[in-house]
C-alpha cells in the first residue's frame, strides 16, 4: 500500500515552472511509522523517469527508519529519497549510520556515501575508508568488533557484512585483513578471501568467540 508522505515545516513554496515544492525551516517528513527525516530544507520534485524525488539538505539531515529487522538512525548532509524504489541516498562528510536490531545489538559506521534500500533492508556504504563498529548486547566482557573497508554492504536481515577494499576486522586482539571479508554478525564468523580465480582461491576462516 502506498503511504502518503507527510511534511511539516515553517514555510513551503510551489514553483509551477519546475513543478517543485520547496519546504524550508524545521522540516520533518514522515511516511507511515517507517521513515522520519528532519532537515533544514526539502525539495519535492521528479527525476528523469518522472518518479517522485525528495531531496533533504541540512546541517545535518537526520533520518530514522524502523523496519522488520530493527531500527536505524543516521546523520548526513544530503539525503535523497527515491520514493518509488524506496531507496535512501545519503551523502556526508562523513555521514553517520547506526542500526539496532531486534535483540538490541548495535552496529554503527561512518562513510562518505550510502545507499539504503528500504525494501530489502540493505545498506551499501562507501568511503575512504568506512569505519564500522558492532556491539553485541549479550557480550558485556568483550570489546566491540571494529572494522574498516572501502565498500561495505550490510544486509540487516541476514546480519551479514560484505567488506571490500583493504578490509580489516578486529576484536580483542584477533585481526583479519584481506581484500574482501564476509562477516556474519549473528555467528560472529569471518570469512576472508583474496580476490582470485577459483583454482588459486585461498580462504581463511577465523572464528571469533561469541
Amino acid at each position, binding site marked *: 500500500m502506498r503511504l502518503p*508522505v*507527510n*511534511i511539516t515545516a515553517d514555510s513551503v*513554496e510551489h514553483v*509551477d515552472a519546475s513543478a517543485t515544492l520547496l519546504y524550508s525551516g524545521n522540516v520533518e517528513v514522515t511516511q507511515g511509522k517507517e521513515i522520519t527525516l528532519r532537515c533544514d530544507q526539502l525539495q*519535492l520534485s521528479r527525476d528523469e523517469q518522472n518518479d517522485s524525488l525528495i531531496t533533504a539538505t541540512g546541517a545535518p539531515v537526520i533520518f530514522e527508519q524502523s523496519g522488520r529487522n530493527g531500527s536505524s538512525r543516521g546523520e548526513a548532509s544530503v539525503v535523497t529519497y527515491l520514493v518509488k524504489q524506496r531507496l535512501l541516498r545519503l551523502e556526508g562528510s562523513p555521514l553517520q549510520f547506526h542500526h539496532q536490531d531486534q535483540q538490541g545489538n548495535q552496529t554503527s559506521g561512518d562513510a562518505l556515501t550510502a545507499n539504503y534500500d528500504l525494501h530489502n533492508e540493505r545498506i551499501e556504504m562507501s568511503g575512504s575508508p568506512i569505519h564500522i563498529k558492532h556491539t553485541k548486547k549479550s557480550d558485556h566482557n568483550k570489546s566491540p568488533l571494529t572494522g574498516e573497508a572501502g565498500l561495505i554492504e550490510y544486509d540487516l536481515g541476514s546480519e551479514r557484512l560484505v567488506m571490500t577494499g583493504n578490509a580489516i576486522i578486529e576484536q580483542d586482539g584477533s585481526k583479519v585483513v584481506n581484500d574482501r571479508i564476509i562477516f556474519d554478525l549473528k555467528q560472529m564468523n569471518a570469512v576472508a578471501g583474496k580476490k582470485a580465480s577459483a583454482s588459486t582461491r585461498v580462504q581463511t576462516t577465523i572464528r571469533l568467540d561469541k
Partner: protein
Amino acid sequence: MNVLAGLLLLVAVMLATSSYVNHLDRKTHASVSQHTYHQDFPDIQVRNLQLVHADANGRHLYQIVAEELRHYIKKSTELDNIILRATPADAPNWYTQAAHGWIDQQNKLLMLYGPVFLKQEAGNDAAPIETITRDMMIDYQNSLAYSMAPATVLNGSHLLSGTGVDIQLKKPVHVKLLSNVSGSHLLE
C-alpha cells in the same frame, strides 16, 4: 492585469458619472424637498451585475459577476457574491470566488472578504492549483494575491495547509505558504 485595472477604472468612471448625474438630480430634488444626501448610503446599487471585457477580436479577458454592487461617493465599491474569471492572453487563466468584495477608491486593490476560493490553471496538462483561504487581497496591477489567514492549497496529489499565503498570478505561477505549514503527498 493592466486590462483588469482599466476595466475596473472604466467601471469606476461609469459609476462616478452616474453618481454625479444622480447627485445633480438629488440636488434639484433637495431644493424642493430640503432632502440632504448622505454619503454612507450608496449612490449606485446594481443587482445581478455581469461585466465582460474582451479584446478587439472578441476574446474574453475578464469577467466579473456579482449578486450586488454598491458604489459610495468618494469611497469604495462593494460587491456581494463576487466571481472574477480572468483569461489573460499572457498569463495562466485564473478564477476566484468570494462572499464579499471591496474595490478601493484608486481601483488598485480588490479585497475579498470571508471565504475565498482561487483556482489557477497550471497548463501543460498539469493539475490546477486551488487555494482556499479567507480575506484575500488581490493587487491586480502587480498580479499578486495574498492573505494572512489560514490557507489550504490543493495541487493534484499534493495537499498543503498553513497560515498566510502569497500567490503570483502571472507566469511562473508561484504559491507560498508563509508559516506553520503541513503537506500530505501521495507520491509515485
